[in-house]
């Protein structure tokens, strides 16, 4: 059974069908990548999955439940977390405080107890801090614990978002272009981080332009173009798919064999 599925999902903005009848099923425990040229609708699909947009047609099934139209925080509480292509960092908070917000859905206190700083709040704070520390360590940021997020370099912030999402102990983690702006060394590290996340039993859905990373870590790839599903399959299947190659490079009059070869190289 799939952990996350879209059924004939559609949304349009001002007449442009950003996502058009997209269906996909994501099996638990895999790295499922969604690729496609710029403007294909990848981030829009993530915004639908995480509840930031409400689909105009179709359904979203998460963990066996129809979650279409639920608010982001309700989805988060069911175990769906994400990162953002354009960083959404809590800049006025320290690195560990950022991650502690990720633990929010597991925190059991209320406003009155918090105001009075009851012993239960102190215990909760300690538990949250411990959980946040291990999430920071998982992405290699343990030495930046108490630094203000605004003082961290870009690559560290990328990882901070992953740690924050991990701290919510999600069943499914949506990673939106985690390698964007990272140098080759950072991207290689990221690959290790993604592998460790999947190993811990979290399903990873990846939107990424770095084809080397996608081809290295993915179990399954779904290709979008102009808001529609173009192809789906394993890494090898997608690599060979002529429609995918065409979508990425466009057609021209070169002999077919050579064209495909070039495209395959571009795809990793």
């Amino acid at each position, binding site marked *: 059974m799939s952990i996350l599925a879209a059924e004939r999902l559609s949304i349009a903005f001002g007449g442009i069908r950003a996502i058009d009848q997209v269906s996909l099923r994501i099996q638990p425990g895999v790295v499922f990548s969604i690729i496609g040229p710029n403007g294909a609708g990848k981030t829009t699909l993530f915004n639908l999955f995480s*509840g*930031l947009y409400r689909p105009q047609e179709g359904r979203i099934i998460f963990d066996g439940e129809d979650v279409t139209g639920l608010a982001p*925080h309700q989805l988060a509480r069911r175990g769906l*977390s994400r990162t953002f292509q354009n960083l959404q*960092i809590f800049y*006025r908070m320290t690195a560990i405080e950022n991650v502690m917000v990720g633990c929010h859905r597991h925190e059991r206190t*209320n*406003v009155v107890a918090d105001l009075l700083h009851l012993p239960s709040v102190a215990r909760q704070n300690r538990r949250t801090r411990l959980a946040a520390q291990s999430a920071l360590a998982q992405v290699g940021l343990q030495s930046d614990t108490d630094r203000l997020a605004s003082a961290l370099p870009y690559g560290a912030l990328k990882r901070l978002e992953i740690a924050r999402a991990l701290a919510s102990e999600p069943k499914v983690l949506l990673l939106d272009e985690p390698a964007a702006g990272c140098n080759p060394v950072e991207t290689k590290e990221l690959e290790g981080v993604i592998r460790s996340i999947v190993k811990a039993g979290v399903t990873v859905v990846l939107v990424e332009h770095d084809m080397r990373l996608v081809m290295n870590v993915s179990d399954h790839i779904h290709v979008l173009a102009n808001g529609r599903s173009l192809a789906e399959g394993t890494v090898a299947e997608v690599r060979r798919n002529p429609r995918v190659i065409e979508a990425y490079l466009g057609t021209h009059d070169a002999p077919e064999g050579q064209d495909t070869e070039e495209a395959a190289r571009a795809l990793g």
Partner: protein
Amino acid sequence: MREPASHRLALLGALAVVIVLMPLIFPSAYYYRVGALVFIFALAAVGLNLLMGFAGQVSLGHAGFLGIGGYAMAIGPVHLGVPPWASLLAGAVISAVVAFIVGRPILRLKGHYLAVATLGLGVLIAIVLTNEASWTGGPDGMSVPRLVLFDWAVRGSQQWYWISAATFLVGAILAFNVIDSPTGRALRAIHDSEVAASVLGVDVARGKLAIFVISAVYASVAGSYLALINGHVTPDIAGFLRSIELAAMVVLGGMGSILGSLVGAAVLVVLPQTLTILHDYEHLVLGLILMGVMIFLRQGIVPSLAAAVSGRQT
């Protein structure tokens, strides 16, 4: 920007010492009154700071809650025979309920739109207080009976100095508590990115509403004290200028700094009193000073000075 957790206990201790020592240099009873007013406004400013400085939601109508708290002290005992202490609680409860009901729709708004909506709320409360003359005495206001606690009638500026200082300290402690709690972290997250907070499971609408209600209660208690210390209350307490003054205290002292709210309140209470020696130029000079502070200490007095001091150390 905000005080580190490790410094807070020391800060509260130092504040308590200052509160106790200040009267030694007061030349007359009048200064007790000014001191009491500083703490009363600082209490309201701390509450507003939780909303503005931590959760990032502006309110230009908070004097409305000062008004509810203030008029509760007049209407309760005079019209309904409710003892003052119970009227104070009733005022806080009514403020909380009003904030809860009004907060739900208006806290969906952001930035300037929220500013105008809260401004409308404040103006609305002031108009009701002015027009319902049979209950509120209209524009002339009402006199407020003295607070009596267990046969002890609270009178005189000196007693109000101690009561308002102690209440301010309690308010500051509660504020510090909430900042480093799950609720406080969620609110600070909302300030920086509502989207990120929501995908981490934070109920953004509920968080904003909770802090709006809490800050309304702070203002309501401050309003009740203000009515009691003055012995009368007029619709001016809920006026637009009062709301702006509260917001100015928060920004001037430093958004997100609890000590800043006290400093902001002190400046805006004491400065106009001091500047009266300038007669016609009083408001001109006050305006220039406020502009100067914001230009040269743009994060507010306390955070800017704290940054300058720690910058010199390293």
